[in-house]
């Protein structure tokens, strides 16, 4: 693979600047025989097809809402696509405009983190990635785009991005703010030194059943909690505590399950942010925390002097009842329901 990895941000204001950056990028890929993938909405797809002309037939278009469904899954999909292309002696050329509207603040952070992690995950694949950022986006999103992309596209040139931040430093900054304290009436279960996690799962199940969490998500929650508690029992410091509550602080309601211990993770512990190397390779195989991220809507980790907290979030489906503006009438004992939209 002679081509080296690139990850460029394309700031644009209007259709002309969008096409001015993306069309040369895609056309060059088609000419070079790359696997060319364009992730965008239908309006952009129509624009691009018109502008590309006959070259459009060699571009695979994918719907952005589907592609950007879950940060860790999207990262794995990117890596998978890049790896498969490289395996066939081709380069992956990806045009990807992340979805920012409709994201809660917490989700925005996780997608920004994914932009940063892409630089590490795809480094050895030789893939070329371009991410258009519209001028109409919130200023903070655009500013973060400059920190997560090593290069910026200006016209037909790519310029080194002076604001680029080392991806791990960026990730650390994502986690710099302490998590909001759990509500005082969260369901709390102290975990003793050698518990049978069967009982822990029974407790989690009972708590989850007080919420509208779908049955298929319950199993994912149980697997994630078991993994986090197993890790804390092996590597953490007692006492361990499990807390559960529902949180609507971000506008979208979520079931939160937090495991805390007094230990501190060593630097470079990884936090399961990157897909593990394929099984069978020297460092490959272990997929614990990475899989936990795939099993949850979001995972938040804080580790330091004050101990370690791992917070697993599962989005709850919107129900008629939860779209209320007043206090919810299915308030379960020990569960903290805030009126929707309250921070």
């Amino acid at each position, binding site marked *: 693979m002679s081509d080296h990895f690139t990850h460029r941000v394309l700031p644009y204001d209007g259709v002309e600047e969008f096409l001015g950056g993306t069309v040369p990028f895609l056309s060059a890929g088609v000419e070079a025989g790359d696997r060319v993938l364009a992730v965008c909405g239908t309006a952009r797809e129509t624009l691009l097809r018109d502008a590309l002309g006959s070259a459009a037939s060699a571009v695979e278009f994918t719907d952005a809402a589907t592609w950007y469904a879950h940060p860790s899954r999207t990262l794995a999909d990117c890596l998978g696509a890049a790896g498969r292309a490289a395996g066939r002696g081709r380069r992956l050329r990806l045009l990807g405009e992340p979805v920012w509207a409709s994201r809660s603040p917490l989700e925005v952070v996780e997608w920004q983190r994914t932009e940063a992690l892409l630089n590490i995950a795809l480094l050895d694949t030789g893939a070329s990635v371009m991410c258009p950022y519209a001028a109409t986006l919130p200023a903070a999103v655009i500013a973060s785009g400059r920190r997560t992309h090593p290069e910026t596209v200006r016209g037909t040139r790519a310029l080194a991005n002076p604001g680029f931040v080392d991806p791990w430093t960026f990730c650390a900054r994502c986690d710099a703010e302490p998590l909001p304290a759990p509500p005082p009436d969260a369901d709390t279960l102290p975990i003793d030194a050698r518990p049978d996690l069967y009982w822990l799962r029974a407790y989690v199940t009972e708590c989850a059943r007080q919420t509208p969490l779908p049955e298929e998500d319950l199993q994912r929650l149980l*697997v994630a909690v078991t*993994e986090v508690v197993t890790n804390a029992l092996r590597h953490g410091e007692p006492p361990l505590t499990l807390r559960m509550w529902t949180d609507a602080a971000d506008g979208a309601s979520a079931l939160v399950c937090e495991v805390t211990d007094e230990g501190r993770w060593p630097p470079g512990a990884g936090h399961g942010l990157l897909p593990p190397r394929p099984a069978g390779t020297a460092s490959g195989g272990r997929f614990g925390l990475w899989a936990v991220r795939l099993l949850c809507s979001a995972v938040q980790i804080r580790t330091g002097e004050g101990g370690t907290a791992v917070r697993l979030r599962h989005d709850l489906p919107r129900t008629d009842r939860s779209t209320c503006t007043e206090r919810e009438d299915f308030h379960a004992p020990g569960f903290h329901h805030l009126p929707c939209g309250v921070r």
Partner: protein
Amino acid sequence: MRRASTTSPAAYADQIRLEPGGHAMGTSWVAERSVGAILPGDHGWLAYSGPEERGRVIGPFVHEGLLTGEKVVYVTDTPAGRLPGLGHRIDVHDHLRAGRLRVISREDACLDRSGAFEPARMLDTVEREIGEAFGQGFRAVRLTTDYTWLLDEPGRMLGCEHRLGGAVAPSTMAMAICQIDRRACPPDQLIALRDLHEVLVEVDPEFDDGVLRMVRTFAPAGLRLEGELDATRHGAVAARLAQVMARHGGVHLDLSRLGFIDLGGLDLLARLAARLPAGGTLVLDHLRPSVLSVIETVGWHRLPGLVRGAGRGLPETEGIAR
């Protein structure tokens, strides 16, 4: 506890095995019991898939009876010294002399003068032996025979089995296991025969701590995991699975009753599968949708050596196809 409404006797409804979620297992209202848990009144059924499975059920059935002062009656033409699954664990001749073990030839037990199967004679034999054991002061009597030789006379066998159930089930001291070689029996006949029994007898579990239960399966060779598997039980699974893998190239896990497996458990299975000789696979059969969904999230490609096998959830012909 649910009650049976379609099968008799209803008394067995309370003994139906429940899976952890509380749902009755299988498609018919029969109890399933490991041989070590067999009780007086059980008219049990063993459709074995080979000598190993047969030996590991009938051996303990006979051995346990003799050890605990019960009477054992075996209708067979096999010499007493070569009864299945006993090996050299006990001196059968000692038990024969003491009257604790009765090995009755088919001719003496159930054939008429022309050498044909005579159901009424078999019933007489069974009733006589139960009565004799009672008279001799035994607290229980265990009866067993293999019906595979009668497969070309299905009508007579079914009639006999039906009446045998009538003789054993109400008894407070008799328990019976009817054996049949499932390989020799057409599926519809197998189902008809099974349905005449209230209890499906199987091998004793390899492991059971109330949360996880492991039972050997024989066709295909492997283990059935029931309940929940997490780090506390990884070692137990690794040890039992390694034993089975040492003897068989490809191993099947029946996961129809596994409600939970943790990530470390999946990792463990993949690591064990990697130890199989080239071409060997660890096949996961009857995965529940919830467990399957977790595996698919992790990705089968991260679990090399693990293969998705037959069916979804419960096997449809519980106790028939394993």
